[in-house]
């Protein structure tokens, strides 16, 4: 009976001691961090006599939004008027209105601040809670460089996080051609009724698919509209988290960019002939993918007589085969340009550019 009790006590001790040690380890580590952090207090908030209440610089805990607004009051505690021509910030996410102002001694000036809280560093991707810290430096009239100023800080809570805030389609989209799709993964960190993703009208098709495995995960599919005009495009897909109270919160955005290509495509996108001895001839094949059989090559132009393009008689299922023969006549990097004019069924002509790159070497390799 007595023996059992002793074992029990030792057992309890053996259980407590490691747990207590582990707890103490973390407590110690935490206290060391806190102690160190306390040593580095923020600089005094007065800059050339200008003062901002530190409380207004701390936005506290806020939800992630691209348009968080707050007001800053700058008071001139000095004896001289101070003219701020503009503000410089450590990230492009903070904007102040008005951009500059002169503040007389004893006066106060109000500024409307707008902070994009959706911007995050790559290492902050996926974090539901993160700190934000932006340096706000005034540039005084007559000064070239900004004067170290104040620190706007706070903690950002995310309703959702996304795998990437940007999508680059580059040359993947063909005008009136098949749609190119890209995906962004989203994770909800609060209970959601739904997730809404909206692109500007007629710019893209956007789908939001909730995951079957995990109700917190969503797959956002974005495809630029093939009817967009030829050339570069850029738009933003805004994400709204609809919480259980049916309120839609604008909480993130995906920037989409690319360049709409002609409906006729050349494979490969760029002809890389590589390094060749001068003088010599380098050759390569390309395939012209036409949208339909009644589209025909009208003519082919080159920017130099040293580039020769011939059409192979045999047509592959991939499209029309073209053979490029490039005379390498000069040393160094060179780019030749080929323009293929394609006649559409409606007799209109579409120009398809092809770039040929090569490097001329001296002597045999």
């Amino acid at each position, binding site marked *: 009976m007595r023996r059992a009790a002793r074992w029990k006590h030792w057992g309890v001790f053996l259980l407590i001691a490691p747990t207590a040690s582990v707890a103490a380890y973390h407590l110690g580590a935490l206290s060391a961090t806190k102690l160190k952090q306390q040593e580095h207090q923020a600089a005094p908030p007065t800059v050339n006599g200008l003062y901002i209440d530190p409380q207004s610089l701390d936005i506290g805990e806020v939800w992630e939004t691209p348009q968080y607004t707050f007001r800053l009051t700058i008071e001139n505690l000095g004896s001289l008027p101070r003219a701020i021509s503009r503000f410089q910030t450590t990230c492009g996410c903070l904007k102040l209105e008005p951009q500059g102002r002169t503040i007389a001694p004893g006066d106060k000036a109000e500024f409307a601040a707008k902070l994009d809280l959706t911007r995050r560093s790559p290492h902050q991707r996926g974090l539901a809670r993160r700190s934000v810290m932006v340096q706000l430096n005034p540039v005084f009239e007559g000064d070239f460089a900004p004067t170290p100023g104040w620190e706007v800080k706070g903690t950002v809570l995310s309703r959702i996080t996304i795998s990437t805030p940007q999508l*680059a389609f580059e040359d993947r989209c063909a005008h009136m051609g098949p749609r190119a799709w890209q995906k962004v993964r989203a994770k909800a960190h609060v209970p959601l009724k739904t997730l809404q993703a909206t692109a500007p009208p007629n710019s893209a098709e956007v789908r939001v698919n909730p995951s079957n495995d995990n109700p917190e995960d969503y797959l956002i599919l974005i495809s630029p509209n093939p009817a967009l005009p030829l050339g570069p495009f850029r738009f933003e897909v805004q994400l709204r988290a609809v919480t259980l109270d049916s309120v839609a919160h604008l909480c993130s955005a995906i920037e989409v960019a690319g360049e709409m290509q002609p409906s006729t495509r050349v494979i490969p996108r760029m002809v890389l002939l590589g390094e060749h001895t001068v003088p010599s001839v380098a050759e390569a094949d390309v395939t012209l993918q036409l949208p339909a059989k009644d589209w025909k090559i009208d003519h082919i132009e080159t920017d130099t007589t040293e580039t020769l393009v011939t059409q192979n008689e045999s047509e592959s299922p991939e499209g029309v085969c073209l053979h490029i023969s490039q005379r390498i006549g000069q040393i160094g990097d060179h780019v030749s340009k080929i323009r293929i004019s394609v006649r559409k069924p409606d007799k209109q002509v579409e120009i398809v550019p092809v770039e040929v790159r090569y490097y001329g070497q001296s002597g045999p390799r």
Partner: protein
Amino acid sequence: MVLRITRWQMRGWCGALAVLIASAMPKPSVAQKPADDAALASVFKDWRSRQNLLKSARYVLTGTTEFKDEQLPAGNPIRPRRVTLLLDLTRKRYRMEGSEDVLSHNGSDDPRNWGFRSRMYTSAYGGESLQHYTHRKANGLENDREEDLSIGKGDLGPGAQFGHELSPIFLTHGIVPTVHSMLMVDKWPLAHDPDDFDVAGRQNLRGQNCLLLRTEPSPGMTSISDEFWINLQQQSAIHRLISFSGSNPWIRLDIYWKNTSYGWWVDHWSDTWSPNGRVRRIINFRVESFEPNPLISDSDFKLQAEPGMIVKVSEGPPLGKGLDPFKAASRTYRVLSSGEWEEIAAKGFTTLEGKELPPEWHRRWMAWTIGGCLAIGALLFYVSRRRWKKATL
């Protein structure tokens, strides 16, 4: 590619009409054509088969670096290089020893003072740490205060990548780096998401019918993407790999294969590096020798610290803990003649706000002190409670 249009614009009635026509068109599915899916599945299957062919491999590579800079020092701009690479393909470890000539500016802007300098290197990854020898004497760094052996632990960061000039060796083993999964020393790209690839079509390259795969661009200041030229008849051997930065093909690998008893194996290759569209370096490599399944041991992947050496052990900060991911904590040691390591310097992690934390051992010391006090307290409590119980019985 840098785009200058800041917002999307509809361009008049023509655009509106085109939008109407497009909206009336049938909606295609997100997936690629079935034939493309089948081709992609076949490529992935071949790459997986390559991954399982061998347990280990040793390569000796010899080649040259051809410097193509506008200004160069006197001498032959084609310089020799050599690499011995030992791969543990089961446990994803490696050891690499090599020598190459590098362009040295010798602290001068005048090319007449520049020169080519031989550099020797040895590195290994043993599953837990990445190690490098400085080769102080061989590399002419006698007066440098650098460490002789550096050891990296924890999150090794984006810098711990294999050079692209070595990619063909990994491609042979079905380890295919892309912009979405880089070839890191501690994380080899073994599996890929089919959605990251586009089948662009088929094209001839040096008489080979190749399947062209393109990776989805990875966004950034300038988006980056890859283009693979693959011969499906040669176990999906990659004959050309181009890395694009925007529209600039900044790395081009042309790879030549030969048929061996293990299948299609890399023979030689050229790696052309063209930043800003201009050729700057051409690296040519040839497999001088290849040893399949050599006997390996743990010591092959651990660089030894010899007496007298200065050893720096760095630890990458854990992500998501509010620590600057680019600033590692480190401890520096001197290896004594007895073989013991004497600590001579220590540096802690740095927070995202730029505050340097005390080195880990300080925190550990404090933690153990508090832990010890708590343990003693618990013991005293136990003893006193026992005595009190005895007294009351």
